[in-house]
């Protein structure tokens, strides 16, 4: 990888993030002007590092579950046996994406109560849609000649799916996972309003006690995480697409 300016910028953002999570006290002088009346400068009701891990953990579990379910559903409705569900599932994805993440989160609370669970469920449900949509796009827009060739060399349906269709659709599916992760990172922040342990806790503590230093550190950690993860996944997509011989878009 060339060390171009964007790469350098991202590496320094990563270094800054790690430094802040490990030694937040180093940054006290920078954040000090944002507080008044000797309010605490660095979030003091829990370790920032732990919150970051918990935040990432919730996002990871939800995205993993969403990926498995969305892929299974997308494969099902693109096989002959599930073809009847294809038009409906397209509409459902369209309708589902008009549901705001906050509403999904808020509506999950009455069903299961406060804490990590409603956040996980909201992240899972909302994360399903982009992955399912992209998997559908990937699996229904395969180059016809390739699928025919696979049939011609005598592959059965299972082999075609695993060796031809899914690998060809992989870059599009990964793009869906990337979208889903970024949305989940943001929605997990809102999860703190229903008592999930995430970085949103820091921001909300800052909003409640009028402490801008808290708001800024919470916001910047989530923001940098989101940008770095988004870029990292885009880079993986490009590598995969190149390996598959598909021109990067």
């Amino acid at each position, binding site marked *: 990888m060339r060390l171009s300016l*964007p790469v350098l910028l991202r590496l320094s953002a990563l270094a800054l993030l790690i430094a802040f999570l490990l030694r937040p006290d180093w940054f006290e002088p920078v954040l000090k002007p*944002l507080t008044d009346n000797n309010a605490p400068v660095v979030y003091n009701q829990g370790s920032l590092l732990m919150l970051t891990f918990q935040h990432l953990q919730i996002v990871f579990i939800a995205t993993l579950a969403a990926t498995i379910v969305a892929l299974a559903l997308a494969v099902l409705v693109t096989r002959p046996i*599930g073809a*009847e*569900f294809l*038009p*409906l599932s*397209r*509409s*459902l994805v*369209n*309708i589902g*994406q*008009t*549901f*705001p*993440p*906050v*509403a999904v989160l*808020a*509506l999950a*609370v*009455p*069903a299961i109560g*406060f804490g990590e669970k409603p956040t996980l469920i909201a992240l899972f449900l909302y994360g399903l849609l982009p992955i399912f949509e992209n998997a559908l796009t990937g699996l229904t827009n395969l180059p016809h000649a390739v699928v025919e060739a696979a049939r011609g060399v005598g592959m059965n349906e299972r082999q075609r799916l695993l060796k031809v269709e899914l690998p060809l659709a992989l870059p599009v599916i990964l793009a869906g996972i990337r979208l889903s992760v*970024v949305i989940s*990172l*943001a*929605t997990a*922040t*809102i999860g703190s*309003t*229903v008592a999930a342990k995430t970085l*949103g806790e820091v*921001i*909300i503590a*800052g*909003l409640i006690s009028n402490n*801008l230093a808290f*708001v*800024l550190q*919470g*916001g*910047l950690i*989530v*923001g940098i995480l*989101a*940008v770095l993860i*988004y870029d990292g996944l885009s880079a993986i997509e490009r590598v995969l697409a190149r390996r598959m011989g598909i021109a990067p878009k």
Partner: protein
Amino acid sequence: MSGRIAFDKLGVVIAAIAACGVFLAPFATFRANRIVPGDAKTIFEALPSWAAMTLLIVLAAATIIALLRLALPWRLAASMAALAALLLLIGLAANHLTPPGNTYARVSPASGFWLLNFAFVLLAADSLTRLRLGPVARIAVLAAAALAVAAILYSGSWNGLSILKEYANRADSFWAEAAKHVTLAIGSLAAAVAAGIPLGILCHRVPALRDAVLNVLNIIQTIPSIALFGILIAPLGWIAIHVPGAAAIGIRGIGTAPAFVALFLYSLLPVVANTVVGLAGVPAAANDAARGVGMTASQRLFKIEFPLAFPVILTGIRIVLVQNIGLATIAALIGGGGFGVFVFQGIGQTAMDLVLLGAVPTVALAFAAAVILDAATELSASNGARTA
């Protein structure tokens, strides 16, 4: 197939969900006051027996129609009948369960009601999708649904439901927050269109600028909303203190200003990116022909390029509007108002009907915006194709 009845596969799914909704899940919840845990009531407990029987018969008939492979209008009619029965009878359940004169008791729809609605919404969505309605017909269906809900609301048959009791307690603030919500969502969209389309045209003309602008806007989109709202408090607070006159026009660290700016920033990417894509997709032949008849650059822009790119730009506006209606909910966390006020108040008081009072209108608004703008995009695309 021979000798056996081939059931509709979606019908089987709907029958399974509906059976769960009737036999395994409660229809309504009764609570002595708004925050205590509730008692689950089945359909027969929640409704007078004649109404319970009617509901079961309608649901069974609709399920059978869903199971058989009947023509689409039949399936649509069955789903509508089932949904109408559910919506009308949940209001009756509220009146039936609430003791006369008791103003503290709360009745809300329970999981069975939602499951049944979900089952028949699936059937309705499937029939409507397969009917391939045109854009005007889709808006007509939306308007009819909105009218039906408005009629039920106006008739007062839902007044016994907990969500409407929450509404009755705060009717004034509900409409004030609704106005704030819509102003935030549409105002920031208007600002983004006013700034984004010229920016998009500029990016189209100056390719060197394009990548830089789109990259920056992309990064902004990845910043979680609550974080961006929070981060903007600092600069806007500074402006309010240090720029003369800023505070007088309503610029403040917290409140509507940071919410408006954040929504504006989020809206820029889809508007700019779609303007660039739309302009890039204008066929070279159209431009050449326009140049051939002696049009100037600005005539070409307004008479040829912009009209041809319009459907793509409209798609961007649709994305922004739906996204803004959802994100405006978060403005409540920084004092910006909107439906989020009820959502977060409700979460704070563990009063779930208050959460619904904020969430249901948000979802309805976003859904209506999506249907209307999708139809508008389709109409403008077919108009464009006709004139081009």
